[in-house]
């Protein structure tokens, strides 16, 4: 039996604070994606480099990022490294945790994308006098980013949703943290979390739709 009187005005009065939280959530997700893509490209190059130490490092990163819960990664970025005397704010811990996760997953996406690009293209570039880096930069990389563009959108959606794990490391300015705070204050659990869910949905929907538009514009043959 569910007996609860919904009082939407009590929750809607707090909407501005929640929207501020949504901005912080988007900021973290976008930053973590930008840094994550750069790191993932570096990891991908490490894995292609043929250098054992570099490719070992990249493989370890990817394995940990993909095979442990994101919650664990964020928790480690806060309490884990703090036991070595490094103190990060909840914001930084959350950003580092999500970025670590993003880079791992994206590196794996990039690997899949590279598989779809024939090796002969690199060789063709090299025979035209391009350097190894140049061939990668001008021939392979643009194609790789194009093929993995939609998987990247997926990861972006994940990044948005992962920000909700920030509460475990004391984050209280992102959308989920703000909602938890307001919940403790007012006990209007259902209204507040329903509103938060709608905001999360709208953000992720906006990301997937705009990604589709961008893809349609950028990738016309």
């Amino acid at each position, binding site marked *: 039996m569910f007996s609860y009187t919904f009082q939407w005005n*009590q929750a809607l009065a707090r909407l501005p604070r929640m929207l501020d939280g949504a901005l912080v959530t988007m900021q973290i997700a976008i930053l973590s994606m930008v840094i994550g893509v750069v790191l993932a490209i570096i990891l991908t190059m490490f894995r292609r480099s043929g250098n054992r130490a570099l490719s070992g490092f990249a493989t370890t990163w990817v394995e940990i990022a993909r095979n442990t819960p994101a919650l664990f990664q964020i928790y480690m970025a*806060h309490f884990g490294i703090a036991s070595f005397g490094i103190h990060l704010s909840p914001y930084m811990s959350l950003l580092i945790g999500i970025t670590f996760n993003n880079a791992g997953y994206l590196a794996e996406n990039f690997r899949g994308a590279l598989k779809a690009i024939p090796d002969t293209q690199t060789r063709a570039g090299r025979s035209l006098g391009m350097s190894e880096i140049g061939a990668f930069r001008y021939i392979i990389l643009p194609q790789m980013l194009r093929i993995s563009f939609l998987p990247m959108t997926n990861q972006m959606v994940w990044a948005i949703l992962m920000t909700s794990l920030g509460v*475990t490391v*004391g984050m209280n300015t992102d959308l989920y943290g703000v909602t938890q705070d307001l*919940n403790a*204050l*007012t*006990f209007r659990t259902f209204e507040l979390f329903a509103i938060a869910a709608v905001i999360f949905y709208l953000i992720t929907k906006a990301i997937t739709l705009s990604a589709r538009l961008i893809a349609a514009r950028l990738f016309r043959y």
Partner: protein
Amino acid sequence: MKTSYLTGALVAATMIAGAAQANKLDDIIASGTLRCAVTLDFPPMGMRDESNNPVGLDVDYCNDLAAALGVKAEIVETPFPERIPALMSGRVDVGVASTSDTLERAKTVGMSIPYYAFENAVTANEQAGISDWEGMKGKTVGATAGTYEAIWLENQVKEWGEGTFRPYQTQADVFLALSQGQLDATVSTVEVANANVASGNYPGIAVVDKAPMVPDYVALFTMRNEYGLLNYLNLFVNQQVRTGRYAELYTKWIGEGEPASLTIPGVYR
């Protein structure tokens, strides 16, 4: 003939309606089980012993209440943020979870008279150089999200206009962060502070001062419209104090000394 059918149908309808309108108190007595929401991350009020059984003052309080009602007690572990969903979705009948009776919350749930009152203490990391509660000004402080002291501390930080407030999800995380130096100080109930300092699990911390706040009165709670049950809860709390059980539980879980007074001079409740 027709009329008697009609009468029969009416009588049946009235009985069903009557049953449907039975209140929570009747439901609990009829079902033979009292389901209590208890937070087991809040020693010494609610915790687990070595064999993982729920114990603590709140657990005993639920057992006493069930005994008074003549039913079986069932402890439903409920972290602080999940107390209201648990109640509203019908997973529990009553909350015995050290819930502060703020006016804001009383708009959503029904609160009994206070059954316990906490005083709060400032616990600091020894490296932070904090010797009294005002020393927290400008520092990084934190508390367990959703608690009375967290709400107080967050407002205090806002009032000071400097320093940072961080809520963690569990009491254990707060003290871990404090011990690691991520937090300079925390405010928690005196009971929790003493228990954690004494446990030795968190090196480098010390209780430095009392927090200058109104005692944190906590109440039992249930659905706002269940007056029958709320009346019963009020009488139950009164009887616990009257019979000396309150003092007995205080000695059992907190230690020697006087339990806090549950009345406020100069006003009725």
